């Protein structure tokens, strides 16, 4: 290991142990701190009762006033220290994990070098391990920081929050691997949802037919995106940006800005809970994940997606129909939007033009954090799933901790930047070694 790395690891180790020590010590003050707080609280309560009685003109004689309690600065510090125990524990454990990780990684590298193997920069496997570890550490931190985190109720909450993004991000993964981007997903969901509402409420179509047509409509939007990008040679950013506004505008126009409520039971049953668990929602999410994962690994369109994203010229020269591949990925993205529209509309039992506003950003963030490169040609479904979970869990955790929306957004932004920086660094080290 390089000398500077050694020093950094030692510092992390030392700080980590120190913080952990603090945390444990602070934890041990629990009883004392609680006793102090209780006595101070009792006294303050009594004084408040006296004040109230005076204001109401009642008799203060029979209010029992305990001995006056004034906490010394020392005692206050003790209470504050105890309150911060979680912070110390979390930071301490994180530092220790980082130190341990760096240490074991260097051991692993050394063992490889000793065996005479060249350092393997083989697949993106190590990257997935990285974000997986980050995710586990994240959950661990949140479990320590908030009692409500590890509850079944909270899990179901998180699941619900991420369900839409989950489905959309799977489609977005294909688009980004192909080297493109789809900014129209949010609008696609909103418009499709409204269309499904209209089909059920005003055209009297059956629920299954509505769902089929709704999804087909979303696919059609995706195909139009694909055609604009291939045959009209529009850059994906511009084409899907235009579609984003077009579809969103259409969503507002179609109902004059009014929401549509109350759908047939068959429709809302998709989001119904069986024994408290949204069964169909889970099944649908898993199905889409399976399709997405299988497609990338075992099908020609999936393989071609990687080729087109990695080197479009070479793909063309290898006999791949590049245009067809591109239309396919945007069509698939559209398909995922249709499914998302179904999930959203059935859960909310309503369709509003503002639905899924900004969905595209969440989807792109999940895909990027999951290790898929914006340049295209690399990526994995598993990575996207972890990316979705990381974003979802962070939002959930920050909500539980009472962090306001502003700082939450800043954290999300920082996360994306960090993920991209790590990706760029990893790519640079791979290229320089190759």
């Amino acid at each position: 290991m390089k000398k500077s790395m050694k020093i950094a690891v030692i510092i992390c180790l030392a700080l980590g142990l120190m913080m952990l020590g603090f945390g444990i010590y602070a934890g041990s003050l629990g009883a004392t701190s609680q006793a102090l707080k209780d006595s101070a609280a009792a006294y303050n309560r009594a004084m408040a009762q006296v004040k109230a009685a005076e204001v109401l003109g009642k008799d203060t004689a029979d209010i029992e006033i305990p001995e006056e309690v004034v906490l010394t600065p020392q005692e206050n510090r003790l209470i504050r220290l105890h309150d911060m125990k979680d912070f110390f524990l979390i930071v301490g454990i994180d530092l220790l994990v980082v130190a341990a990780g760096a240490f074991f990684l260097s051991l692993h590298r050394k063992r490889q070098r000793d065996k005479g193997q060249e350092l393997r920069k083989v697949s993106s496997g190590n990257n997935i391990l990285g974000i997986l570890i980050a995710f586990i550490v994240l959950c661990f931190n949140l479990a320590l920081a908030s009692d409500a985190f590890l509850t079944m109720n909270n899990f179901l909450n998180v699941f619900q929050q991420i369900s839409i993004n989950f489905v959309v991000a799977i489609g977005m993964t294909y688009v980004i691997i192909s080297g493109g981007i789809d900014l129209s997903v949010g609008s696609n969901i909103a418009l499709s949802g409204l269309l499904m509402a209209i089909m059920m409420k005003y055209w009297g179509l059956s629920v299954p037919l509505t769902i089929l047509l709704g999804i087909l409509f979303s696919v059609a939007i995706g195909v139009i995106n694909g055609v604009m990008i291939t045959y009209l040679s529009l850059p994906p950013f511009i084409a899907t940006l235009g579609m984003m506004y077009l579809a969103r505008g259409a969503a507002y126009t179609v109902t004059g800005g009014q929401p549509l409520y109350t759908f047939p039971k068959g429709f809302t049953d998709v989001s119904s809970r069986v024994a408290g668990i949204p069964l169909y929602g889970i099944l649908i999410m898993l199905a889409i994940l399976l399709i997405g994962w299988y497609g990338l690994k075992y099908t020609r369109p999936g393989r071609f997606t990687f080729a087109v994203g990695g080197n479009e010229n070479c793909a063309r020269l290898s006999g791949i129909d590049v245009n067809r591949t591109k239309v396919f990925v945007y069509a698939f993205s559209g398909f995922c939007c249709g499914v998302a529209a179904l999930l959203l509309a059935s859960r909310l039992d309503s369709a509003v033009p503002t639905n899924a506003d900004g969905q595209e950003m969440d989807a792109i963030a999940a895909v990027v954090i999951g290790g898929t490169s914006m340049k295209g040609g690399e990526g994995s479904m598993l990575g996207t799933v972890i990316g979705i979970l990381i974003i979802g869990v962070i939002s959930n955790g920050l909500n539980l901790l009472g962090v306001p929306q502003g700082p939450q957004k800043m954290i999300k932004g920082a996360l994306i930047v960090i993920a991209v920086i790590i990706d760029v660094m990893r790519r640079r080290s791979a290229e320089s070694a190759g």
Partner: protein
Amino acid sequence: MPLGKELLKVEGLSAGKQVKNVCFTVREAEILGIAGLVGAGRTETVRALFGMDRKDAGEVLVDGRKITIRNPLDAIRAGIGFATEDRKSEGLVLTMGMGMNITLSSLDQFGPPLKINLQKEQKAILEYIKRLSIKTPSPLQRARNLSGGNQQKVVLAKWLLSRSRIIILDEPTRGIDVGAKIEVYHIINELVRQGAAIVMISSEMPEILSMSDRVLVMCQGRVTGLFDNDGTLTQEKILTYATMGDKQSA
């Protein structure tokens, strides 16, 4: 290796200012070397042939049948493969594994479009790695991490696997160390043994003279000479015809 029937016939191929009325034929198991100075229009000729660039005029016949080639897909479907000059920017998908690069044009051999048989694919990849002596720690190794020579072998493996009957090679040993060069020549000979018709563009005279059955010489977009490599062909002669300007010679 006895030469077979005529596999490729190019007549009156013209494209822009750089390809003027080029004609040649190639037979099964034959190597046609294309010599000329830089700027002679050799790469432009084959690119037009392969459908990469638009051509203004010309007919292409594969196995006696006229073929319309408007894009590389048409050419590949007609059985033509093309290993370009710049393997990094056009020959390989550097971010993909070297194995997947090898099978990229041949996925139809491993199952229906929605069900690639990964084991079968892996077997084929390992077979080609062995056959062509490609040095790689694993079939999953990213193509960009291979050395130049091994990268070129991957490109050749791709066209070998694709069972293309006509293979165009543009400077196949550029930027490759001597050891790998010889291995590449072996691979080209292997292709010939399988009955492929090879068109090889090269700026290295020794290479042209040692590998080709016949040599086409181009200068400023035109064919200036077509010779059998029968022992009387020398570097000086090739050079003469490569600098002849507009003069035509049989």
